[in-house]
């Protein structure tokens, strides 16, 4: 099993398309930091002008924590697409290229093959998000330094710099779970199709469709809305409240875990019974 996972990881990280995701994350972060470095003060003062009328703000408002928080908001929109590029390719891409039979004719069960691909896809997803975490914090600390974090949610929350690291760690952990749902969804679709475009388009279409439906707040869907996985994606922000709603977070974690297992088993059921013609 260890050999299989290693084999899958080597294939993932020898493919140029894998690095497209890392490059895109790198470019977005660089572009964002570049913009904030030169125009950040102006932008932030526009947002905080009401605050400044009533409070005296001291210290560096634009700091690594604020920028990392803002980046998380931006990147969670793009990350799913980047994840699908690789996880959607794991079965369908190999099927279309004819290399799937190379593994399927080795002495491993279909479950072992499927599970190893799944784990490799998860490792890639986690690595991509950790890359984003390390780059935004490393580069942000270097360019902007530390400071207190001001977050505007229901209330204006101001966290001292020694109170934010754990919040980011939890938020990233939660974000990883959400992105594993995306990876599982695209992987499941990958087991049904014969080309890698299907899982990418399928996953994005499902995400956009669900987001549109939930954003419109269709009354018919409101009873089931808490059970849709996409509504929980933004809940990493709860970690930036003073009174963290743990119950809602636990519910979100359980719903997302259920989807991960559901997508895994639906995909495996199909993979296990399918004939390999390519």
């Amino acid at each position: 099993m260890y050999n299989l996972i290693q084999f899958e990881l080597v294939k993932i990280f020898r493919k140029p398309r894998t690095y497209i995701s890392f490059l895109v994350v790198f470019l977005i972060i660089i572009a964002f930091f570049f913009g904030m470095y030169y125009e950040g003060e102006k932008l932030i003062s526009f947002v905080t002008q009401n605050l400044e009328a009533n409070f005296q703000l001291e210290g560096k408002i634009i700091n690594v924590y604020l920028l990392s928080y803002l980046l998380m908001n931006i990147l969670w929109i793009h990350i799913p697409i980047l994840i699908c590029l690789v996880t959607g390719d794991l079965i369908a891409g190999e099927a279309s290229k004819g290399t799937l039979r190379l593994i399927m004719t080795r002495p491993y069960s279909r479950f072992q093959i499927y599970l190893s691909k799944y784990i490799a896809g998860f490792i890639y997803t986690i690595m991509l998000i950790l890359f984003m975490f390390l780059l935004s914090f490393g580069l942000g600390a270097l360019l902007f330094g530390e400071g207190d974090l001001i977050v505007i949610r229901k209330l204006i929350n101001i966290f001292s710099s020694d109170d934010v690291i754990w919040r980011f760690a939890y938020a990233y952990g939660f974000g990883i779970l959400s992105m594993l749902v995306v990876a599982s969804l695209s992987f499941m679709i990958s087991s049904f199709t014969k080309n890698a475009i299907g899982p990418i388009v399928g996953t994005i279409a499902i995400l956009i469709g669900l987001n549109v439906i939930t954003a419109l707040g269709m009354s018919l869907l409101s009873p089931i809305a808490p059970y849709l996985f996409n509504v929980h994606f933004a809940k990493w922000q709860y970690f930036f409240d003073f009174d963290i709603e743990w119950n809602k977070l636990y519910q979100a974690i359980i719903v997302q875990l259920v989807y991960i297992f559901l997508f895994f088993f639906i995909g495996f059921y199909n993979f296990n019974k399918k004939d390999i013609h390519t």
Partner: protein
Amino acid sequence: MLELQNINKNFGDFSAVEGLSLKVNKGDVYGFLGPNGAGKSTTLRMILGLIKPTSGEIFFKGNKIDGKSKSYLKDIGSLIERAEMYESISAQDNLRLLGKLSNVPNLNSKVDDLLKEVGLFDRRKSKVKTFSQGMKQRLGIAQAVLHEPNLLILDEPSNGLDPQGQIDMRNLIMKINKERDITIIISSHILSEIELMANRMIILSNGKKVVEGEVQSLLTENDMKVKLKISSVLNLESLCNKLNSSIVSIEKVDELYEVELQMTFQAIPDLIAAFNANGINVFQVNPIRSLEEYYIKATSNV
């Protein structure tokens, strides 16, 4: 070594393989013949567990393949149609990765030896995407025998190769059969190839077995055509009747007669002796029976 018992495979209403039984013995080079859609690839894929039979049983080394455990595959190597390898990885790394999956001992030296054997050692560091189809096929053979299997399954290994590539591939397969003592199942559209390589064969048509047996006996025991150049056709019909042969055509070319007879291969010496005894000089004998002719005839009768 391998036995299929009453195998059926349906895709919806379409029956791809119907009641197929066959037996491959240890040491055989077993030829799979049949036109497109005959069920050759489907059968080979069923043996490898890529496709699940609708019904029937497959036995490998006396053990029934149940479709769940894939441990029997450690003794089988395969090259199914085109050898698709990981394009962005070098030939050497492709083999090392695949060898690791099969827990091949002394992997690195074995990979290098195999690359030398298939003539790719000089290109071992090159990415597979830079390889010609012939090179890819040879690399495909190398990955198939890397774990030293007892049975090698080759599904149209010469597909897409130029004539020289086909000869090289044929020589490589025969070398593997002889030197490594591996039983081989090979399917091919190039019928002369099967004729040259296989000792036993099966002909499939529309998913059904037409015939199975020794290649030589299939070639020689059945009716074939013989073209002769002879000096006279006097009493030809009565001579042919005595030898259980029949006249297909007679044509006079210059001073000689070109005659085409339907007969058995074994009757040729008797025929020549009878002609000589009757004062008919034989200038040329050309048995035009080939596996291809037999194959076309056999498959058109189903």
